[in-house]
């Protein structure tokens, strides 16, 4: 094994693509995750159990199953895929498909964390806000959102990390096209099938570890800032 890390241009692309996919998936999922958590925690409505099951399903379902279902939905003959194809946005086997796969798989983790954050908010604070003249949307942004920021941060970090590692669903809907849809796990998978590429696979593994550690450190740093930000 060579001492230096060996990264080919395709590997660099895979790393950049992984970051892009994970970041886009997290940012896209955030408002939906927040809305879903809010509905589950604060609203009483018919079909709430169904929503909860639906949100949590990707957590227990094999990613390959999710990928296959997404393929049916987003494929050329799929309900959404056809519409998008008609307006000139191909999804399947592009990086956008990888984003959708990651967002779907990571969504339950995001919602769970935000939900925990919201559930830890003293209900009296919401009552106080409402009785002080704040309509519900004002209360949502001035009290619920800031007080669940730790949950939002934890959820985003988890989701980002999960997206970096997404494999099963991605390989089905986005394929494994170097430079286009090949993310770090897919690249490692390619290397792992040929015995001569151990060093290359290991290099990518080290990159993956570095990204994960960075996410954890960033999470702790921002969480500390939030905690400090309260002392004003």
């Amino acid at each position, binding site marked *: 094994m060579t001492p230096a890390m060996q990264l080919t241009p395709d590997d660099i692309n895979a790393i950049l693509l992984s970051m892009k996919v994970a970041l886009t998936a997290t940012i896209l999922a955030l408002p939906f995750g927040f809305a879903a958590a809010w509905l589950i925690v604060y609203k009483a409505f018919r079909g709430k159990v169904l929503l909860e099951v639906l949100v949590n399903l990707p957590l227990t379902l094999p990613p390959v199953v999710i990928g296959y279902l997404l393929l049916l939905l987003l494929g050329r003959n799929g309900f959404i895929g056809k519409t998008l194809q008609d307006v000139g946005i191909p999804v399947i086997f592009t990086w956008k498909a990888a984003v959708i796969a990651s967002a779907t798989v990571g969504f339950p983790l995001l919602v769970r964390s935000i939900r925990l954050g919201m559930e830890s908010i*003293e209900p*009296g*604070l919401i*009552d*106080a*806000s*409402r*009785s*002080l*003249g*704040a*309509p519900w949307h*004002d209360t949502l942004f*001035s*009290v619920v959102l*800031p*007080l669940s920021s730790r949950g939002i941060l934890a959820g985003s970090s988890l989701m980002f990390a999960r997206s970096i590692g997404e494999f099963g669903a991605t390989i089905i809907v986005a394929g494994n096209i170097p430079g286009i849809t090949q993310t770090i796990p897919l690249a490692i998978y390619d290397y792992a099938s040929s015995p001569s590429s151990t060093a290359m696979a290991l290099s990518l593994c080290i990159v993956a570890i570095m990204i994960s550690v960075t996410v954890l450190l960033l999470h702790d740093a921002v969480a500390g800032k939030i905690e400090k*930000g*309260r*002392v*004003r």
Partner: protein
Amino acid sequence: MKLSIDIEKKFSGFSLQFATTVEGPRTGIFGPSGSGKSTLVSILSGLQQPQRGEITIDGECLFSSCRNINLAPEKRRISIVFQQSMLFPHMSVRSNILYGYRRCRSAERRIHPDALIELLKLQPLLERDTLTLSGGERQRVALARAVLANPRLLLMDEPLSALDDTLRFQIIPYLKSVSTEFGIPYLFISHSLVEMQLMADRAIVMENGRIREETTPDRLARKKMGASRYGYQNLMRFSGAEACNGMYACRWGGNTIFVSEDPGGGESLFELSSREIILFRKNPEAISARNLLQCTVTEIFLSDGRIGVELTAGGETLVAEIVPRASEELALTTGSAIFAAIKASSFRRLS
């Protein structure tokens, strides 16, 4: 302010039925925990909905089940001072105080923050983090926040229950002065009779989700005297205290009262149990008790097998408690002249 309430709310195993009209600036709602007081607060403020009924304030309908009206909490202009202050932990004291004010229409802003900050002595706290405040400071901030929302009614939901005795009686003058100074009527909810006596002119007594009676806090205290563990608490405001022979001589109306506990400067509030007063038909001349007041009996009442004797001395009123046999032996009637002996150590300082 005129608040008409006629509502009904059922839960599993509990139902609240509340119908009355509240007028006047200081009304108390008294009852043990579980009597439905907090549910009533939630319903009045719009945080919970009753199944049936109507709530109107100064002619404006807040809730009506038959007319299908349910004004949102933010539109009711009813502020709450909670038992656990409920300050927003992610905001400074200043942002907390101004939370309601900023959301209040400028036409409805009658109270200016500076005036209130001064009245409640909040200036040194403004930039503090709410988590570093003491219990009493928290309640003062919560009060300021509620009042600055410029409500037409203030609901004080057991605002003193989480505080210790010393703090409780320090906060009461603030609660009262804010209401008087800015003309905001309040409903004061509590399970403490002494708090009722100090805060309310009228008391609505609740039990098991129903109104049991409407009375004055003093009438209520007299009624509960015999059955209470501590008797009737005479609340006495002393002034002009001076140290004298290891005690303190204070002015109470036209009387001088000796107390053991230091009353501090200015006006102080003491409580004296009706059971700590000994009555004499004639002047006992030499006794160890340091206070001997010459009084006139102005009322005699029965309370759970005990006799309450209302006494007047030097323009002030006091309630003593005796057993019926003692009353017979003293041949008490309204108008009788009598001597009341009270030990200096029997007075307990509240504030």
